[in-house]
């Protein structure tokens, strides 16, 4: 590799380098800065994210590969990176006060958040199973530590332990699939794999085995049935801001690699995985929707809700084609806004001795806080998929893609199950509006948390008003091979 190629590669991975250097600097600064510099840390983290976003914008244009074809900057990666920056930025903004309330305000938190972000960025830009694996592990390792960030809380310890053990199992399964795929094709570069598999027969048992292992490893990361059992425990035990981050950023990055691997490398063997993924998607929506009905803890309920949403987004993958990919991408963007919004309202309830993570804590909330209750209503309606909000269009475009591909039965099942899902979101709305408050509400609202809620609210309503503009944005950013 000559010098020019090295320089080109470094420029192409500029945003990742900015984030990693920023995280290292934050680690150093944390050693000398004292607690009262909390705001400085928030500001510095945001500055790193914004600098990375600016670098990403500067790289937009024709797709270019780097590092010998292992890394790519295309519109698909840029779209997902922007979703990741949005999710990280909003998470950082809602963290400051929450960390003080929980007495875990430490600089490592922000550094780990940035390391997780850089891992996700490598995942979405990875064009080789090796780069994807390394990015995946970088984000997972950071998230394991962040999940266990309440060192003195047994629930947080338990969540982190379950997450790391099941995460390592899924990595092992994914790697075994990787080794078989390498054995079959002689390469791990996604485009070369697709070329090598073009002549493969879908009945080849080794190929079926490799595909099943890869599917299984990836399904775990998006939290779909039957590998969903870590989701509720991790979401409940982790700090709420990390739960929010996990549910949107980690999920978006996981879907990015799912789309890239399935629709690029494994595209020639589509018939092996389509049925598998369709069954998994339906089971995931069903389990998520029904089990969420009986939850009393709002973080746990949102965990099952996120399982159901992951199932819905998987249906977009089943539909495939440019429309299917664009619908999944739009779904993840919308989900980022509405889910961070609802988690913002969970974060704001945490003050003093009030944990504020039970659904009953919201009883009569609308009687005293009309504006905030209305905002929560918008987020909940959006999660349920009720028309004027963005959540409706997220589901709508997935269903359109499904029906266009002739999967009418799947679309009907998905609609029926989302009617079940609507029930538990509307139950919270009913608690807020129809009941008398049992306690006075003392909210940990800071200007930055207000900003998060405002941005999330604007996004949820804005995409609901202009869905076609955002759909065009997603369609302009689909994988190059799909065009």
């Amino acid at each position: 590799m000559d010098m020019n190629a090295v320089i080109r590669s470094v420029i192409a991975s500029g945003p990742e380098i900015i984030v990693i250097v920023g995280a290292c600097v934050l680690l150093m600064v944390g050693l000398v800065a004292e607690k009262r510099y909390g705001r400085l840390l928030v500001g510095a983290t945001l500055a790193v994210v914004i600098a990375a976003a600016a670098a990403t914008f500067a790289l937009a244009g024709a797709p270019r590969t780097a590092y010998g074809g292992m890394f790519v900057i295309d519109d698909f990666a840029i779209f997902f990176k922007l979703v990741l920056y949005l999710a990280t930025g909003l998470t950082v903004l809602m963290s400051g006060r929450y960390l003080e309330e929980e007495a875990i305000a430490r600089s490592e938190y922000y550094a780990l958040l940035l390391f997780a972000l850089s891992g996700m960025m490598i995942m979405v830009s990875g064009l080789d199973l090796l780069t994807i694996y390394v990015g995946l592990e970088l984000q997972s390792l950071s998230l394991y530590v962040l999940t266990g960030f309440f060192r003195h809380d047994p629930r947080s310890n338990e969540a982190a332990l379950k997450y790391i053990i099941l995460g390592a199992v899924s990595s092992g399964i994914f790697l075994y699939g990787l080794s078989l795929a390498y054995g079959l094709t002689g390469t791990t570069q996604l485009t070369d794999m697709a070329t090598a598999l073009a002549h493969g027969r879908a009945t080849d048992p080794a190929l079926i085995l490799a595909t099943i292992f890869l599917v299984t490893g990836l399904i775990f990361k998006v939290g779909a049935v039957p590998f969903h059992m870590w989701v509720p425990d991790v979401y409940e035990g982790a700090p709420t801001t990390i739960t929010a981050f996990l549910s949107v950023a980690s999920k978006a990055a996981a879907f990015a690699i799912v789309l890239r691997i399935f629709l690029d490398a494994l595209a020639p063997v589509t018939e092996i995985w389509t049925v598998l993924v369709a069954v998994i998607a339906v089971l995931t929506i069903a389990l998520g929707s029904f089990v969420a009905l009986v939850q009393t803890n709002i973080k746990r309920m949102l965990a099952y809700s996120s399982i159901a949403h992951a199932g819905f987004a998987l249906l977009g993958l089943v539909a495939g084609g440019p429309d299917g990919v664009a619908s999944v991408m739009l779904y993840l963007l919308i989900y980022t806004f509405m889910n961070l919004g609802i988690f913002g309202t969970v974060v704001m309830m945490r003050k003093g001795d009030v944990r504020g993570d039970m659904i009953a804590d919201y009883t009569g909330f609308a009687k005293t806080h009309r504006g905030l209750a209305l905002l929560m209503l918008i987020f909940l309606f959006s999660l349920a998929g009720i028309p004027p909000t963005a959540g409706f269009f997220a589901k709508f475009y997935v269903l359109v893609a499904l029906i266009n591909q002739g999967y009418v039965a799947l679309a009907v099942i998905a609609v029926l199950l989302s009617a079940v899902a609507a029930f538990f979101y509307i139950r919270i709305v009913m608690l807020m509006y129809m009941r008398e408050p049992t306690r006075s509400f003392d909210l940990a609202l800071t200007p930055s948390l207000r900003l998060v809620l405002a941005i999330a609210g604007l996004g949820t309503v804005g995409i609901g008003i202009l869905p076609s503009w955002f759909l065009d944005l997603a369609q302009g950013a689909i994988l190059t091979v799909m065009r």
Partner: protein
Amino acid sequence: MVPLSWYLVLGAVLFVTGAAGVVLRRNVLIVLMSLELMLNSVSVNLVAFSHFFGDFRGQIIAIFVIAITAAEVAIALGILVALVRNKATLEVDEVTIMKG
């Protein structure tokens, strides 16, 4: 020379043994050891394929896998130490307090 299939069988046996250990054993430390077995089976596969094809890709990936697994186990043990300080047990069933 030992044929490729022997290595693949060894890899498969190691992987299944590791997976069985993760599912069946109730002690966290033994679960972590079983995990190592699963990940090492992957390295066996990769190196065998790499030798068979005569290229370095598989061996490079194996080195990455070994390094990342070491980091993973370090974090797992760190989490375990934090957990044991709060609750002196290594049994998976006794750790569990969240359900539903």
